[in-house]
Structures are given as C-alpha cells and as structure tokens.
C-alpha cells in the first residue's frame, strides 16, 4: 500500500523538554460532527477508519478529537493529504460532464457517473485497490462512494489512490441509528456502487476472504468502545459488531451480483 503523507500546517519551536528533538505543530484536518441527518457520523467514521486500516484499504486516516470551545462534543477529524508534490485527480470535485461518454460501455456501468472517463482510467491503473474498496463499501453499507476518493492518474509509474469520507456508512448509512440497523440487515443494501461491473474477481475474492478472516476479537476491538460516542450508546456498538458479523456471511453473494 502506498504511503499517504498528511499536510502539516504549522511547525512550532522545538520542544525544550524533548530528548528526541521533537517539535509541536498542527495538521490540516477536516472536522465532522453528528448532525440531524447523520446522527452517528462520528462513531461510524471512527469505526470505518479502524476497519479499513485492519484490512489494508487505502483511506485517509482520521481520529476522534475535541476542541475547548465544544468540550462535550466528540468530532471526527480526517487528516488532509499533502498533495503539493503530486498531481492527484480530485474525484470529489464537481463534474461539468462536458465530454461524451464512451460508446461501448459495459452493461451495468452507469453512463451518468461523474468523471466517467477518469473513472475508467482509474480502474485500469488500480484494479486491486478499486476491488478492495468496493467490497469494503458493501460490507460497511457505504452507499456514498461516488466522488469520495482521490487518485494519481497521470504518472508513468504506479501512483497513489485513497478513499475518504465513510461518514455515510455503518450506523450513519441512514439518517437515524434505528434506520441504519434496518438497512444493514438487508442483503440488497447498498443497491448500487460506482465501480460495479468494473471489478476484478481475483481481488474482490481476496478482500472477501480478508473480511471473513477477521477474528471476532479484532472486530470487537474496532467497533466497541468503553463509552458512548456522540449518539451511539455502548449497546448500539455491540449490535453493530453483531451486524457486521452477520453481513460478512452474505458478502460473497452480494459481490457476485455486481461482478
């Protein structure tokens, strides 16, 4: 997996008490909180991030964070990538759809997708990562992958790709926690994905094996905390742990449907 660097905003004076020549500084971050239409966004982002790292899914790292002005509120901060030394195509940007879609498009691939030409190029350059991300999205119930990734498309050598924003997955895949649990029970959810019909059977098989091979204790460590996180109680967290164990049983069946 490529190493993603994050963007340092400021570097302060050396820490006088440090024996390792360390300095304090600040990173560039994107701050997210729970809100009315995403009541469990913070918890879901934290868990999706932990799971992605266990599985080797290329995602921008994020951490729980607080600010003195909102002491009681836990936020999720996603670290911003350092992009100045790379030419990274931003799929998160709006697409004006100026170009014609290719005439021969595989059945099942939507010609309405934003950045379609770049997306098709992306599939050729990063077949493994795209397959990994797609299987992961199905497992965590992420229906919001379109536009939520960035990649290098113009390098001669293999470049960098990373996914970001898993805030509409897990207990935040619907606006309320109860509705999200209902959706996660459904084998037909998510019902679409931008990479469907563009996947490599070998690589999706590999990721399905990885997900099913996660020991229960690892899954438990990634999903259950000793405290309520935002609107998500400890009991909700145990139920999500159980939902993910249930969902991985039919993951193969789900993915076969989009190959």
């Amino acid at each position, binding site marked *: 997996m490529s190493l993603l660097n994050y963007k340092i905003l400021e570097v302060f004076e050396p820490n006088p008490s440090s024996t390792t020549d360390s300095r304090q500084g600040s990173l560039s971050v994107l701050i997210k909180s729970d809100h009315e239409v995403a009541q469990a966004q913070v918890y879901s982002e934290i868990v999706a991030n932990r799971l992605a790292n266990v599985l080797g899914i290329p995602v921008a790292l994020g951490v729980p964070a607080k600010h003195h002005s909102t002491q009681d509120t836990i936020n999720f901060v996603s670290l911003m990538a350092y992009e100045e030394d790379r030419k990274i195509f931003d799929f998160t940007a709006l697409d004006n759809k100026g170009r014609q879609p290719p005439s021969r498009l595989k059945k099942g691939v939507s010609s309405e997708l934003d950045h379609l030409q770049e997306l098709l190029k992306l599939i050729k350059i990063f077949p493994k990562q795209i397959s990994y991300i797609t299987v992961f999205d199905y497992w965590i119930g992420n229906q919001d992958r379109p536009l939520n990734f960035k990649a290098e498309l113009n390098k001669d050598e293999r470049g960098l790709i990373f996914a970001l924003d898993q805030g509409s997955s897990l207990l935040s895949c619907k606006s309320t926690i*109860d509705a999200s649990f209902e959706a996660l029970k459904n084998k037909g959810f998510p019902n679409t994905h931008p990479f469907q019909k563009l996947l490599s059977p070998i690589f999706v098989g590999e990721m399905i094996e990885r997900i099913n091979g996660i020991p229960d204790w690892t899954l*438990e460590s990634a999903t259950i905390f*000793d*405290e*309520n996180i935002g609107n998500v*109680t*400890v*009991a*909700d967290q*145990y*139920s999500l*742990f*159980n939902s993910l164990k249930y969902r991985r049983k039919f993951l193969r069946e789900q993915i076969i449907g989009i190959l």
Partner: protein
Amino acid sequence: MNKKNYDQILSELDELTALEYLVDDKITKRELFHDEYTFYRLLKSNPMLEQDIDERVLISMAVELTDKLKKSIIPDWQNNQTYKARIILMIQIILKNYHYPVSENNFIVEQIINLAGVFTNNWQSRLI
C-alpha cells in the same frame, strides 16, 4: 414497576450488600460501588457457576457489565423492545467473553435485565 416496589427492592439490596461487606473479607467497599457489588452478587449466585471461578475475573465482569449497562440506559428503554434487544445482546456477548455459563433459557440474562431495571432511576438521576 411502581415506586413502592422500587424503593423496597433498593432497601433490601442495601441491607443485603451491607451484610455482605461485613462477612466477605475478599470484597471491600473500596473495590466496588454499590451497583457493581449487587451485580457481582447476582453473577456469583448462578447455580451453573463452577466453584473455582477466579474471584478477580468475576469482579472484573461485574464492573464491566455495570459500567456498560449504565452507559447504555436511555429513557424508557424497558418499553423499547428494539433497543432492549440490543442491551440483551450486549449482556450475552460480555458473559460469553468471560466464559460465564449461560443456561439455554437465558435465566441469568433475564435476571441482569431485571436488576438493571431496578437501578435505572438511580443511574438516570446521576445523568441529569
């Protein structure tokens, strides 16, 4: 549960735990809070429990169970069947993690739920 029953049960539990503190030299008030100790007694009273279970394990389980129940209490949880099922699942997983014996009829889980119901008002009043 009406108020009289609730007060009566709490009072009985107080008496029970006060006695236990005096007679059981392994457990002290400094180690366990009142609610934790009550759950500990409940877990220890299970007839399916082997005699040689490590006392520290039982105490750890009681502490974790109490803490997580306390944090999972939401208003009217006992009448919200969907949410109550999540609490039951949580209890089952915690007991399983500690290799605690659970009968097929989930009797101990039911007892834990009932005891959580007794403490609910007390736990919620601390949050206000």
